[in-house]
């Protein structure tokens, strides 16, 4: 397990057109982490990257993706033309060339690093907007304000749930789902300015009203940034006052109590499901028990504290009823699944169309899936990122030298991976086992038959 603080060597953003003249090199660096690095060292790092990126254009029209040196790995991401985000990690290296594969286990997967950059950019764009729309004089401070806390809180690990950027959906019995839907409908009808864009229970999604990609960004923001802080606060706070028991606005962090608080509401750029392009909205987040609901309000709307008070009175009791009924159902569900014989094989499922992601081990950071070896993860990450390999439909089974079998299946825009640890199995055993697991775990889902 590795975390960013120790392993990330640096993270920076540059745009060569910001300081084209010699001597203006520092202007090109929009953001640099860590801050203690001297400006000369910064210039050197950025300069190297600029050169590599530029040099690579000679060979390919595709932007450069990575650079590996003996001690460092650079991952490049160009979200907007001219803007480059670079993540640099140290790789432990031995001077002897005879090192075996077993020793390189501490390296963060390039695809995981790349995903980190992508989601960092997307969250930035959600809250601040695209780089190109920010006036050049503001861009440095905006990046500083946003990326410093972001990169410091990011805990990137090589684990099963990090390999694929997906959304964990809460399986819910249909009547409970209807309760959620009808609650949202009623709320939107009574408060037409407010549009519900997501309903999350614990860290699992129930309802989404955003275009799928934006949903992933918002979901990641909620699950990785906002909610952990909130949960921590709730645990520490202990004495949640009686007035708060029905729920509260959690963004801004101190809630919305007065008209001034309304000014602190975040503005976000999002694309709703029925929208055709990204628009700016206020982001309102409300939480009761374990249920978190997000709303967008058009930025042109005149915000009124009375509306928010009325909304609080409306949502609070209803949401807590729904939340407790969901919690009951989850408990029942957990009991039932505990009774089922759990397989020791691990699996990972991903649906590219709705980004649904499901793993055999719960994807919470509290119980990391310890047993999976980095090279196994690296193989899965490889299959996942190489979409062309399996094509629209296919299956691959890989055996590692140390008795792991990895099976990857792709069909109908879905991916299914199984990790089996069995020294004595043969290919047919594994194929049968994968088939059985697929049928068990993915009931009612159609995988193209072989």
């Amino acid at each position, binding site marked *: 397990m590795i975390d960013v603080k120790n392993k990330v060597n640096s993270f920076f953003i540059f745009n060569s057109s910001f300081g084209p003249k010699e001597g203006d090199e520092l202007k090109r660096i929009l953001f640099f982490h860590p801050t203690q690095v001297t400006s000369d060292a910064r210039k050197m790092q950025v300069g190297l990257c600029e050169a590599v990126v530029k040099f690579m254009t000679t060979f390919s029209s595709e932007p450069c993706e990575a650079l590996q040196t003996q001690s460092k790995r650079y991952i490049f991401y160009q979200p907007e033309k001219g803007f480059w985000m670079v993540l640099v990690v140290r790789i432990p290296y031995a001077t002897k060339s005879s090192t075996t594969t077993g020793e390189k286990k501490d390296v963060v997967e390039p695809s995981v690093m790349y995903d980190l950059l992508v989601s960092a950019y997307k969250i930035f764009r959600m809250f601040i907007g695209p780089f190109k729309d920010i006036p050049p004089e503001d861009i440095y401070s905006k990046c500083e304000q946003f990326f410093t806390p972001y990169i410091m809180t990011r805990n990137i690990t090589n684990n099963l749930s990090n390999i694929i950027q997906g959304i964990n959906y809460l399986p819910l019995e*249909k009547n409970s789902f209807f309760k959620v*839907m009808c609650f949202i*409908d009623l709320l939107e009808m009574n408060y037409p300015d407010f549009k519900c864009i997501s309903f999350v229970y614990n860290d699992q999604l129930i*309802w989404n009203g955003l275009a799928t990609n934006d949903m992933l960004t918002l979901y990641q923001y909620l699950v990785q940034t906002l909610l952990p802080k909130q949960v921590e606060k709730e645990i520490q706070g202990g004495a949640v006052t009686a007035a708060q028991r029905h729920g509260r606005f959690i963004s801004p962090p101190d809630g919305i109590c007065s008209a001034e608080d309304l000014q602190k509401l975040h503005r976000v750029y999002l694309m709703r499901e*029925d929208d055709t392009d990204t628009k700016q909205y206020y982001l309102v987040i409300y939480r009761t028990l374990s249920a978190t609901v997000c709303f967008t309000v058009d930025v042109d709307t005149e915000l009124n504290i009375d509306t928010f008070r009325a909304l609080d009175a409306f949502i609070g009791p209803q949401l807590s009823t729904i939340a407790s009924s969901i919690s009951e159902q989850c408990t029942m569900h957990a009991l039932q699944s505990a009774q089922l014989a759990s397989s020791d094989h691990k699996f990972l499922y991903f649906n590219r169309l709705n980004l649904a992601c499901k793993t055999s081990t719960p994807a919470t950071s509290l119980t990391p899936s310890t047993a999976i070896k980095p090279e196994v993860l690296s193989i899965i990450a490889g299959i996942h990122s190489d979409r062309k390999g399996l094509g629209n439909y296919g299956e691959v089974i890989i055996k590692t030298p140390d008795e792991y079998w990895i099976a990857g299946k792709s069909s109908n825009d879905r991916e299914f991976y199984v990790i089996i640890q069995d020294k004595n199995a043969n290919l047919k055993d594994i194929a049968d086992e994968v088939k059985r697991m697929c049928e068990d775990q993915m009931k009612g889902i159609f995988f*193209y038959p072989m």
Partner: protein
Amino acid sequence: MARFCLKDSDKYYLCLSDQPKRFDADSPVTNVFFDDTNGEVFTVRSGGVTGVTVNGMDDSKSTSFRMEDKGPIISIKFSPDHNILAIQRNLEGQNATVEFVNFKDLAPTNVEYSHTCKWKNAKILGFVWPKANEIAFITDHGVELLQVLPEKKQLKTLKNISFSGAWFSWCAQSNIILLAGNNGALLQPFSLSNSTISKLQKLEVEWSRPVVERDVFVLRLCGGAWCALFRHADSTTPAPAAGPTEVWLIPISGGGATQHVLKTGLVGRFAVSVIDQLLVIHHQSSQTSQIFDIMEESKPENNIVIHIPIVQGISMKPAVVDDQPCPMYSGNWVVFQPDYVIDARLGCLWRVNLVLSGLAHSVPKDEVSKIVATLLKRQNGKETIYRILNQLVSEAGTYLVQLTKAFDEINSVYRKWAELEVARNTAGQAAPARALHFPVLVSQADVCAHVLQAHADDGHLVQVVTTYLASLSRHDMVVQHPVAELCVRTLVTRGAGGRLRSLVRRGCLGDARPLACQLLSLGHIDPAAAQIALDMMWRLKAYGEIVEVLLSWNEPISAVGAAKQTGATWLNMPPRKLLSAAKHYAEEKNEPTAFMAVYHALVARNERLRGNPNFIKGEQCAVYVEYYRQLTSEI
């Protein structure tokens, strides 16, 4: 409190029948009698010498005739088949005699006879015809049930029961007599069915005062016989402190053990009608009529249920007689069971009719669903329910909660009916009269055709459809195709594809082939819809369809795999189709092995089918066999 007002509805929920039956008004020379068993008015002019006219709602039974004036008439009634006329007269010393005249084709024959009751000294309080040839004399000594033998001009006693009664009340629909004994302190019902008299359990009236005749009605309601008792405030307490009158409904037979208390909130003179299983209480001084539904959802406490009027009391719709407004609730009115009103002075006989739309004319927002529940129990309630639902849907922005509750009422009734049907079918019992328990059933197809489809342009249709589905789900009802189809159409056209997919993924719409096909057809604009459509087909084991889909997606190998899921699909698959798809795929993707795999699978199939690897001529596969040779020779 916001009120829901049904558009184009009148405020009146009760009206008198359009054309009253006219008869000669009561006058010194004309006497008017009403027979509530047949619902007929007898006008007797000059004791019958100048004519007797019989008028009823059924014109074919109306007649007039003359008869001798043998003395003042107390009561005159036809037998139910109109073949015998019975007359009771007020004659000195002959109190216990009833005269009979045989009738043929509504005209009197000259066959006349009379019968004196068993107890010579008794006074006949009245007589009733429980059956065509049976008559019961109710006397102060008891009840005597007799069979009339018109040909023999005789009556034969069937059964008699002694009971000392002061007055009685008769319910023709239930054939029940309620006799008041001990000056009204004891109420004893008798049933006159099966040609016998049976004494029923006496009614316990633990009141301080004896009951008087005008406060007691025996009526048939919701399949049972009830005694309706008006319980006025105690007159010993000073008038201002006296509470309003309550109506107690005490079950006599068939109504279970629960008593119902109807709170009128009024004092004064009352009359009762029963219309379509609703109890209507007319109040003279306020000129209002209240409606009570004893079937409404309620929780009995100590076996007593308290009811308030379904809607606020209002007068009946003013009637017009001879182009003049007719005085309503006049002192000349006499109300008979179940729903007759007579104005003896004007000479009018009406029935009281229910105007269902009037019930929804103006109701508090929260009570809309209660009105729907009431309408579900009324004959002809469907039309008004549709009107209410349509208006709720049009104004869903305001009435979503009420609409949800209304859907719940409809579905819960439907669900109960469906359960009974299933139980009946499995038990193989005789069909219970559906109309009795479920006068209105609103099916999913009905809701689609009469409500949802008309609102294709309404702003909130997505929410309306969702709430309807939610209601179906709460009642554990399978979503039928018309609803699913409308749901898909609505959600897709309103840009709520995400909601549609969520509903399908979470099993809210149920799996069905038509739905899967509909989703599949959305595939070109929404790939996720096609994905879940294919899942659905898989769950439905629709392998034939899956093969077609995969072939159209240029996935011949998967198509073969899908076809192999069942022997029937695989063995009946035309090979040419697969081979042509495989060739296309192989050439397009430059993967000749794909073609070969399909080819080999089919050859193996031939072997199994016919013991011979070759394709038969009819399958027209020669060109592919050739293509296969060509490919293999290249390798």
